[in-house]
């Protein structure tokens, strides 16, 4: 049986005497799971993930990471298990060179110099940042800074990786690269949690989605079930994926199965309704409005 990496029970939190930001969150994540947390700005997503590495501690309820209650250990101790990449890389970056930035955590954890060098070089290569090794992080573009922040977490190889809004400010190609990287992390057995409201990015990458709104978890389920639920999508201030909308127009004619929000599966469903031969005929260019 896979063990629980994250166990959150009845978590309540607020900043000082303000309104409650988290109102009774229950969430369990098993080792190796790959989950997107979606919801509007202000839903409490960032506050929730800050509980995962102990930056914030529950006022009621508890958060356990690999069985350990976050209130009983330091942030530095938790950092070995949980790597949190912030939304704004400027909040994370501070060193004078790209290389130093990535090496920082390893030095803190007391890794030997040779091992540090090996790991830093490897992760910089993976992130396409090797050529900027000696450069100041603040001279990097927005997209590069974002990859640097991710690199400085990946380098110490935590079991659980949490990314807060990794796609903001990234263009389409950078997004695709990022998607590939986090998919690889999961393939290596890491537990990956991504906070985002980028609907099509989630469709491409995730099979499982958690929806948050106003400090509560509204739903958790398969991407194609959650993101086609009109009411839920609206409550979370998301929009439906393009192919969910197309499928709604077609539901009387075609039965959609699997994750049809991705184009390859959507195409398969249509081909099985139409038949290959008909498609060939239409391919001549007659299919248009």
């Amino acid at each position, binding site marked *: 049986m896979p063990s629980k990496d994250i166990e959150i029970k009845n978590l309540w939190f607020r900043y000082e005497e303000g309104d409650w930001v988290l109102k009774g969150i229950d969430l369990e994540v098993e080792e190796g799971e790959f989950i997107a947390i979606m919801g509007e*700005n202000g839903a409490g997503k960032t506050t929730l993930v800050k509980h995962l590495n102990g930056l914030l501690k529950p006022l009621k309820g508890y958060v356990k990471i690999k069985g350990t209650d976050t209130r009983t250990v330091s942030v530095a101790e938790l950092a070995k298990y949980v790597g949190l990449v912030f939304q704004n890389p400027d909040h994370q970056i501070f060193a004078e060179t790209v290389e130093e930035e990535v090496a920082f955590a390893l030095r803190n954890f007391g890794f030997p110099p040779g091992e540090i060098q090996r790991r830093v070089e490897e992760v910089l290569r993976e992130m396409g940042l090797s050529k900027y090794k000696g450069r100041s992080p603040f001279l990097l573009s927005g997209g590069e800074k974002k990859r640097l922040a991710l690199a400085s977490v990946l380098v110490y190889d935590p079991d659980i990786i949490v990314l807060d809004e990794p796609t*903001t400010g990234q*263009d389409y190609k950078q997004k695709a690269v990022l998607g590939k990287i986090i998919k690889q992390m999961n393939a290596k057995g890491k537990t990956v949690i991504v906070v985002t409201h980028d609907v099509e990015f989630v469709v491409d990458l995730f099979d499982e989605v958690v929806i948050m709104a106003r400090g509560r978890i509204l739903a958790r389920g398969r991407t194609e079930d959650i993101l086609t639920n009109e009411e839920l999508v609206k409550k979370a201030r998301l929009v439906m994926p393009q192919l969910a909308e197309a499928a709604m*127009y077609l539901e009387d004619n*075609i039965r959609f199965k699997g994750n049809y929000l991705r*184009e390859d599966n959507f*195409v398969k469903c*249509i081909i099985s309704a139409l038949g290959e031969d008909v498609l060939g005929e*239409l391919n001549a260019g007659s299919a248009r409005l």
Partner: protein
Amino acid sequence: MGSAIKIKGLSFRYRGFKEWALRDVDLEVEEGEFILIVGPSGCGKTTLCRCINGLIPHFYEGELHGEVTLLNDINVLEKEPYELVEYVGMVFQDPEAQLITSTVEREVAFGLENLGVSPDEMRARINWALGMLRIEHLRDKAPYELSGGEQQKVAIAAVLALQPKILILDEPTANLDPLSALEILNLLLNLKEKLGITVVLVEHRLSMIVDKVDRIVVMREGRIAANGKPRDVLKDKLVEDIGVEVPRVVKVYKELFGGERWIPLNPRELAEVVIHALKRHRDQEPLV
């Protein structure tokens, strides 16, 4: 209709940089057009916007060649930015960075005070701008009390109150949740329809808006790589090669039917084509 923006042979590089941010750009935008500018990070989109509203060369220095003319005869290079605010308004990615006063009403009044508009006229314009953006209820709120989407609406209202003929928006929805982004985009379309305002929009989320804009301009490495009607531009493989998002309905259609001559721009168009194909299929079946 007259010309809103005319750019001829425009090249620019920022002071201290070897690379040219813009290279020999020619672009004409007609009054009342809604133009979408897309392209990968660093392709020159933001620099182009700055050249249209005069931030370049008046605020950002560098080497500039070519001409930028607004509304037939306003030479951007010769005017000071404060002289241009009546003609061209600009909205940026981060609304917090452009809101500076204590209430929404004062925020919208701020630019008008600088223009020396009379108090009656000012009140009228504030009411009008808040109404156009449907944010009258936020009038007495402080900008920091607002959500990101509301802040961006206030930023647009503040620019709109100056009644510019041209509105330039540089990734105005980048920090917003999808529903807020959609609201902003719909409001911009409404401004174009109702006021005939010319809109130049830089935006990554193509799928939300390609079926509603008049033209798409694709930029790459400081140049214009494609410029045309959405259907013509998105049909071309070039867009995908450059690294611009191709809406999923376009990908599905190309996979199913090819797509050399036509593509759908939204889910409804895709669905209609598929239903049409299904009907043909069924009608033919008895013959087989």
